[in-house]
């Protein structure tokens, strides 16, 4: 009986061996074909990215290696003179520092202000949920320029707040809330909040009312439920919101320019000045490259942080 089985098994295995590569080959072919098809789908996007992002950045990098002649003429060369000029000048270090401080300030404020809103919007069972979310991001319908002028009307020396305070005699001279970092930050936070709300709402996917109830049933007070369950589960959303606002804030130009009244020195405004006023394109390009490196660093940090959260 067992002998019969073996004799039956052996010839059975032989054709199996010869036929084995056959089904595998088309399989492998299929897989690589679909892989190429998927890559082909990316081509239009990649071409767009190449034309609109990679080539300009390369051109900018090339420009940053040129020199600014004494007569203001552009000298085609390969040198790191512009980078040296930036990095050896305390003023530009101050500008980089200002940029980072403003970025952090905006991101922190926007996240703190958006978090309760986003939590509420995610949790509400109201039939108006959709409308409420639309309302929260409705400010995006107005241009940032218009909203910045709105803030000038509120925070300016003759603005709403100062008029009221002066009229009430609370202050003698107008509070300086405009033409400085404070005004720029306040306006930027308000302008960027819709982005952080959106980022958080989409990042709160792991939150689930049953988890908070389970924590409660296991003896966690409301505060403990928040610190042990709600906060850890919403951290990815918080990080995404923070990064998004940070990146948008350090690259913002219109609002710091208008609210800063020429007295807020950050990378975006300095790049603009060098490019359009001084006409020192190599220096402007070097500053832009430095800003790009700052972006890159923070995106790296963000990815590290998110990975850490996912793993523990």
């Amino acid at each position: 009986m067992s002998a019969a089985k073996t004799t039956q098994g052996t010839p059975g295995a032989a054709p199996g061996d010869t036929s084995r590569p056959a089904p595998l080959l088309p399989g492998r072919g299929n897989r690589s074909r679909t892989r190429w098809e998927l890559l082909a789908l990316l081509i239009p996007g990649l071409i767009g990215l190449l034309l609109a992002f990679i080539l300009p950045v390369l051109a900018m990098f090339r420009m940053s290696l040129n020199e600014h002649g004494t007569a203001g003429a552009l000298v085609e060369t390969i040198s790191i003179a512009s980078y040296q000029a930036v990095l050896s000048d305390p003023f530009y270090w101050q500008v980089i520092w200002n940029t980072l401080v403003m970025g952090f300030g905006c991101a922190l404020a926007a996240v703190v202000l958006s978090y309760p809103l986003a939590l509420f919007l995610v949790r509400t069972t109201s039939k108006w949920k959709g409308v409420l979310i639309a309302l929260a991001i409705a400010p995006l319908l107005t241009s940032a320029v218009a909203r910045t002028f709105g803030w000038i009307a509120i925070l300016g020396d003759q603005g709403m707040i100062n008029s009221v305070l002066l009229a009430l005699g609370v202050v003698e001279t107008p509070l300086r809330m405009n033409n400085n970092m404070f005004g720029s930050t306040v306006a930027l936070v308000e302008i960027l909040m819709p982005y952080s709300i959106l980022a958080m709402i989409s990042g709160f996917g792991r939150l689930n009312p049953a988890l908070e109830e389970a924590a409660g049933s296991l003896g966690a007070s409301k505060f403990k439920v928040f610190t042990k369950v709600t906060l850890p589960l919403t951290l990815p959303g918080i990080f995404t919101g923070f990064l998004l606002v940070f990146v948008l804030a350090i690259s913002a130009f219109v609002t710091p320019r208008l609210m800063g009244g020429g007295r807020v020195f950050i990378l975006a405004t300095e790049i603009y000045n060098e490019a359009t006023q001084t006409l020192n394109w190599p220096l402007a390009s070097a500053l832009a490259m430095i800003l790009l490196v700052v972006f890159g660093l923070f995106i790296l940090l963000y990815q590290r942080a998110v990975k850490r959260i996912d793993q523990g």
Partner: protein
Amino acid sequence: MSSAQAHLELRGLNKTYPNTESPAVDSIDLNVAEGELVALLGPSGCGKTTTLRMVAGLLDPSAGEIVVNGKDLVGTPVHKRGMGMVFQSYALFPHMTVAENVGFGLQMRKLPRKEVKDRVQEALAMVQLDHLAQRRPAALSGGQQQRVALARALVVEPTLLLLDEPLSNLDAKLREAMRREIKQIQQRLGTTTLFVTHDQDEALDMADKIAIMHNGVIAQYAPPEEIFDRPATRFVATFVGKANFIEATEVVGRGGGRYRVSSDLLGTLEVEGVEGIEAAEDAALVVRPHRLGVRRRGESSAPQIGGEIVPGGPVVPGRVVDSAYTGNVRSLVVDVPDGQQIMIDELTVRDRALAIGDEVEIAFDPDDAFLVGSR
């Protein structure tokens, strides 16, 4: 692990959700003795989850009392009730390991680190998951997640264990294994348990007592055998098991839950029934399909019921109109004279298959008929 045995009593517990007319839970009373496992069984939407959430403290009752060991807990927040709850979705914390999940309740009770570790270990051993302590819930199968949820709820030595459809996300085989496991652990620890399910097999298998819920009220509260053999209402009879109803035309009470019942189909019988039935209107005899005997008309042998010979009960002629084979059991539908159809489940026997169109005789045993009233 041990358990301080608790006694649970619901008194007139009511929940009416805002903007709804009728209450989701309508003034129910329920008494769960120390160490008992009670199943809340009913169709979807009958108010089981609402009841359980009120007991847990996740939902405020509109009225009534939740008394545990003589103390009314209404108003006590969820985290101070000391109950253990297993959610339908398990609700394991995705950002914690299995051990951290199980230890969460002990941590909240501020126990020393060493004790937390030991008790987590013990609880995981109880559900045979000690080897997976450092895994994340996402890396566990459904059955394993279920067991972690159970260990997490039990490790705190809860006064009450509350389970909301804990097995409904598992496949059939695993579900049966988990039934036994939960039941064994519950019996070993002696934890008073309230178990919500819409699955009658689960309730019959696991529960010491079953509370059948229907439209927010408890239709019957009794041990499984009694629910099945002596259903309190038509709803209970149809919801738990299959039931034939034979409408009564005349009912005479004989005291002690016994009645003389006349019906067009069966003539007059002496049967047991729900106490307090006064009129024949809407009263009916419940007869379970598997308690009926059936034979081909003209066959000489007596009809068989569960292997026993019928002791001279009524016999009704009929004609098979449907026959479904399910392996152990053949389910027949038979047209009988008064225009009614009778369901019969007979154990399959070799060389005997009643087919559609066969003329048959159905044998009733009065002891297997039970009278239910209008409700």
